């Protein structure tokens, strides 16, 4: 039953399946299995079935709206949905019902997609394990004792566990690519500005980007194409035409030059990950790609720069949760006490930590030493990518240094942060990247290959991922959930 969206819509076209039957099947699976996985925070059963019935009428009339009509998808609970509670994984927004749809949601509805529900996440997208949701942790469908990654762990686990055909998340430092790698699905962070952030609850506005999770690269192309493009409500969205990503997929990698960065193979990484990624590179070579070593020396300083910039922007963005206009309020004798108590009660430990860190880094006397310095390091990261892309078409690397870890294993904040060491540079430089499954560890856990490209070169990134996917059989392996 659980199969890629392009296969579902083929079956709708032939009349072998209907959007209603498929939506019912997914809702039944959620009902039976999500108690174990914890991928969802909210399931919108009646809305989903109503959308599926409308889609069914369109298919029956031979007039589907496009390749996502009748596709059952899940949305990270950081995307505002009109009339449906949107929590960002936080007690602060436990009862927040947005009065409008995010642009992504608006475009999905217009494309005929069937929204199944809202998925779990680390609170305000701060985390790499989905253990920091204020509601419950999400479990990895490949091994329920392990984390699905994060912060978009619910969206990744939903697709891996057959609880949605596709989904969307947000990626600020790896929050799509890392959980995609941990859960054995495809996950893509587009170029910064490619997808409108309007209606995305902000974490770090200069880094945040929305992107899809999918069972295969073809669906990734379709899910991205449906939401990409300029939006006047997001001043940072890019005014550039959206290519036919799916139409470009089969062009292959012959003649492309792929850069292999020395700095992405580090001491302490899982040898299974290194082996799988090096084998994947051999596969791409066999398909006609040229491999060239590249050097991105500032990679090792990216994590530190990121953990200045992200908390700084987050501390500013999260200042809006003050108990006045929406969200939680805890009473106090005066205005300041009300605000301070509200924020103390509404935010979890990791959010408080990053707000404190960001406020400190921006405070008088420290701004230049931390924020100014980190922004200059960000320039170096951008320049190094630009220099590399002057002579290679794409960069290939591991998505993460390790496979999915166990719940509770990374208690120390810094060791959790280290998980994003290979994904953060993509956010600092704004370039697009995808994680595509490239094998399994000896313990049976998925491994991700990361493909990074030039700004707005999503089509080529996806094309390489597709060529690799078609040459391998990893996607036929599925976790067993029952």
């Amino acid at each position, binding site marked *: 039953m659980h199969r890629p969206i392009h296969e579902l819509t083929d079956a709708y076209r032939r009349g072998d399946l209907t959007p209603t039957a498929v939506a019912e099947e997914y809702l039944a699976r959620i009902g039976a299995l999500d108690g174990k996985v914890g991928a969802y925070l909210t399931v919108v059963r009646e809305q989903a079935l109503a959308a599926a019935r409308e889609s069914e009428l369109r298919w029956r009339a031979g007039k589907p709206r496009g390749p996502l009509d009748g596709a059952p998808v899940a949305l990270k609970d950081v995307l505002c949905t009109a009339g449906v509670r949107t929590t960002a994984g936080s007690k602060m927004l436990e009862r*927040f*019902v947005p*009065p*409008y749809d995010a642009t992504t949601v608006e475009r999905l509805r217009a494309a005929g997609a069937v929204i199944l529900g809202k998925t779990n996440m680390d609170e305000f997208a701060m985390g790499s394990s989905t253990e920091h949701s204020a509601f419950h942790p999400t479990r990895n469908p490949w091994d329920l004792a392990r984390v699905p990654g994060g912060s978009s762990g619910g969206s990744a686990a939903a697709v891996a566990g057959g609880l949605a055909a596709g989904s969307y998340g947000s990626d600020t430092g790896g929050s799509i690519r890392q959980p995609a790698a941990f859960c054995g699905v495809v996950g893509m962070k587009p170029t*910064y500005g490619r997808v409108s952030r309007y209606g995305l609850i902000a974490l770090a506005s*200069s*880094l945040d980007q929305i992107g899809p999770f999918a069972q295969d690269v073809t669906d990734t192309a379709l899910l991205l194409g449906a939401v990409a493009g300029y939006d*006047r409500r997001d*001043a*940072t969205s*890019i005014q550039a035409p959206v290519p036919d990503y799916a139409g470009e997929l089969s062009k292959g990698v012959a003649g492309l030059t792929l850069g292999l960065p020395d700095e992405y193979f580090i001491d302490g990484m899982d040898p299974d990950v290194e082996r799988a990624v090096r084998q994947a590179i051999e596969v791409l070579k066999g398909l006609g790609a040229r491999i060239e070593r590249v050097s991105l020396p*500032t990679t090792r*300083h990216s994590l*530190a*720069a990121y*953990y200045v910039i992200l908390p700084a922007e987050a*501390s500013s963005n999260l*200042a809006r949760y003050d108990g*006045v*206009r*929406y*969200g939680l*309020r805890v009473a*106090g*004798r*005066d*205005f*300041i*006490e*009300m605000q*301070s108590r509200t*924020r*103390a009660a509404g935010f979890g430990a990791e959010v*408080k*930590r990053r*707000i*404190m*860190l960001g*406020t*400190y*880094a921006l*405070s008088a006397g420290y701004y230049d*030493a*931390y924020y*100014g*310095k980190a*922004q*200059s*390091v*960000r*320039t*170096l990261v*951008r320049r190094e990518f630009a220099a590399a892309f002057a002579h290679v078409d794409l960069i290939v690397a591991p998505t993460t240094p390790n496979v999915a870890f166990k719940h509770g294993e990374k208690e*120390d*904040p*810094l060791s959790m942060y280290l998980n994003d060491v290979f994904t953060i540079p993509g*956010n*600092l430089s*704004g*370039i697009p990247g995808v994680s595509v499954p490239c094998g399994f560890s000896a313990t049976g856990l998925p491994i991700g290959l990361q493909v990074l490209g030039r700004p707005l070169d999503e089509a080529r990134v996806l094309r390489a991922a597709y060529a690799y996917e078609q040459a391998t059989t990893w996607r036929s392996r599925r976790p067993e959930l029952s």
Partner: protein
Amino acid sequence: MIDRKDVEHVARLTRLALTEAELERMREQLNSILAHLDTLRAVPTEGIEPTSHAVDVVNVMRDDEVEPCLPQDSVLANAPDPSGEFFRVPRIIEE
């Protein structure tokens, strides 16, 4: 190194009523994270322009014309303490 007073000061700035235990834990954790962030000092960045956005952004202007916006009641629907067409807050200025 930041001490307890620094942590209390930052908590006040950012309006977080932290408990004694939280303040102490925050001091330890922030020091450990800051020790890592201080490795940035070793990166030579003299004359390197800071990047605030990964893509070049320019101010986006539009004509100053009234456009449809959200109805007031739907905006006030999420307010913890709405009053008529206002957000009500506790006293700010002493009598």
